[in-house]
């Protein structure tokens, strides 16, 4: 195999292929996130009740709208693999970039582990329902991750084309369930009148629900990881990202409406796969089968997108020597970051096998939240260092700095939400990021080429 490690002295640098369009960007973003409608979001019902979860869904939807607006402007301008990591390198500095890269790797690798666990568990549940109880889900976990890794290894175009098909199928299963529960005929199937209650914890429960409200949308910012592989960054990224967030807002609203009309909130707040459970409660075998397939597809699509995104972030850090340069290699034939893909696979499997699903999910959410907190700082510095008109932007988001201010405020509220019930985990994660930051600043940074970090053909930033 004649691979080439980037960063070493080479006569010609192999780049990732530019083959993706807006539909692939949509498939990457929605594919990662849609599983959040099938599992995980409902823990927000447990923390704040059904209405608390709905308010969290909308408020956190606003948070992600700000994320998508900011990301669309910066990524369409900084078109490089690594997404927010590449942005941080150009606007804030290496230590921030290292942290942002790690947020991405941790958020996606742990989400991938959770997706694979859900796939295995759901297959075991279905096997039990068909008369084969006690099926060990672990081989399915390994098989899922291994097959998706192979797909990612062989090329990004096929990977995201597959994601487009299975994500669209999973979204369609939600729409079919929505039609199947006859929303035009309240009381026939849906029982909102009898099931909806007042806020069980009052308004503090609504705030606490923000933590898992993030699960409705976690990962949509992953569209930025495709920046180096899209044919037109200025068109594909804003179009794919904004249409993705609209799709998710629709899916989240439908999901809330269906499940709260069928499942008591106390059960819903701790269920493994609420849409699947809702389908079983309709008594329809057709809906049951559709939602089984939809849930599996959503988990597989998410794991697939996570492998794609985590490997791009890890690859980018290797290429820049933030991590060992060995990871910064592109496959000479498939043009994929194959070493980064392969390295992260056993790690994802081992996270899945720790059995610490709630820890893994919380680490993923917190890594995502830290990444969102970086964005307002990033946006402020980006506009300050390169004001409008000083460089060519693919897209300019409106109402700056309002989205950045709203985003920072909502991030602060969400930290408080995580503190309510998961304060120890929050401190442990922050402790982890503080230790690795010290490790980078005082050890790892010595291997980094300084001027090579700035790769965009931009003028010198204002004030430097």
């Amino acid at each position, binding site marked *: 195999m004649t691979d080439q490690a980037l960063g070493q002295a080479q006569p010609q640098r192999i780049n990732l292929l530019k083959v993706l369009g807006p539909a692939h960007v949509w498939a990457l973003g929605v594919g990662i996130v849609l599983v959040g409608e099938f599992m995980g979001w409902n823990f927000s019902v447990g923390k704040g009740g059904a209405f608390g979860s709905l308010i969290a869904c909308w408020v956190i939807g606003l948070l992600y709208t700000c994320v998508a607006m900011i990301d669309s402007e910066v990524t369409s301008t900084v078109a490089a693999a690594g997404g927010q990591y590449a942005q941080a390198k150009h606007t804030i500095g*290496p230590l921030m970039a290292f942290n942002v890269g790690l947020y991405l790797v941790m958020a996606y690798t742990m989400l991938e582990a959770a997706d694979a666990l859900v796939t295995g568990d759901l297959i075991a549940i279905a096997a039990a329902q068909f008369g084969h109880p006690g099926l060990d889900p672990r081989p399915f976990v390994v098989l899922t991750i291994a097959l998706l890794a192979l797909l990612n290894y062989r090329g990004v175009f096929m990977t995201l084309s597959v994601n487009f098909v299975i994500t669209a199928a999973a979204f369609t299963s939600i729409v079919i369930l929505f039609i199947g529960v006859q929303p035009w005929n309240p009381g026939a199937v849906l029982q909102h009148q*009898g099931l909806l209650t007042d806020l069980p914890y009052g308004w503090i429960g609504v705030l606490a629900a923000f933590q898992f409200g993030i699960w409705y949308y976690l990962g949509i910012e992953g569209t930025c990881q495709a920046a180096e592989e899209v044919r037109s960054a200025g068109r594909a990224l804003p179009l794919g990202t904004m249409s993705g967030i609209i799709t998710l807002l629709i899916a989240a609203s439908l999901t809330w409406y269906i499940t709260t009309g069928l499942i008591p909130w106390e059960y819903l707040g701790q269920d493994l796969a609420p849409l699947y459970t809702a389908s079983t409660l309709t008594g329809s075998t057709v809906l049951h089968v559709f939602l089984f397939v939809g849930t599996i597809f959503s988990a597989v699509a998410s794991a697939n997108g996570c492998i794609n995104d985590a490997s791009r972030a890890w690859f980018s850090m290797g290429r820049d020597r933030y991590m060992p340069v060995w990871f910064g290699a592109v496959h000479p034939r498939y043009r994929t970051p194959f070493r980064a893909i392969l390295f992260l696979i056993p790690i994802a499997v081992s996270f899945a096998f720790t059995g610490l699903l709630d820890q893994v999910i919380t680490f993923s959410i917190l890594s995502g939240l830290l990444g969102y907190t970086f964005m307002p700082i990033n946006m402020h510095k980006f506009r300050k260092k390169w004001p409008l008109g000083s460089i060519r932007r693919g897209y300019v988001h409106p109402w700056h700095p309002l989205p950045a201010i709203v985003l920072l405020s909502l991030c602060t509220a969400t930290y408080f939400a995580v503190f*309510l019930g998961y304060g120890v985990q929050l401190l442990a994660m922050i402790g982890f990021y503080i230790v690795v930051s010290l490790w980078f600043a005082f050890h790892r940074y*010595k291997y*980094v080429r300084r001027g090579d970090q700035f790769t965009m053909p931009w003028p010198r930033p204002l004030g430097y």
Partner: protein
Amino acid sequence: MAQKYDPPKQSGLGQFIDSFFLMALVYAALLLPILLGLTGGATETVLPDGVTQIEAEDGTVTWQGLTWESLGQNPTMQAQWEKLGYDVEAAAEIITTRFDYSIAPLSLLITAIAIIGYFIFLVTMSEKEYREVIAEKFDARR
């Protein structure tokens, strides 16, 4: 004019150790709350008036005074619980488990200081490194 920085070459063993160290830290962060016995959401059991729960030495739980009405469940809710395969005692285990949202001010203060301090450190240190990057990119000579 700034001098171009030439980083040392890292050995294969050094690259392996750095990767291993980072992953070991991730596992430590995951496992630390477990070792401290402080995982998951902070929950408590809240029993409705007139309902008591007795736990035997072998861990089996028996309920007294337990009805769907005492758990605040109306006939619609009861019907859905039963469709899910839960009787009143099994449902009570879930319904009576509630989050505890009492706030310890000192703990909140420590958490806030940790998060704010972390970001201040990141921005400050990054700014120092960024100035080196810009100086080398735009001014450097070999």
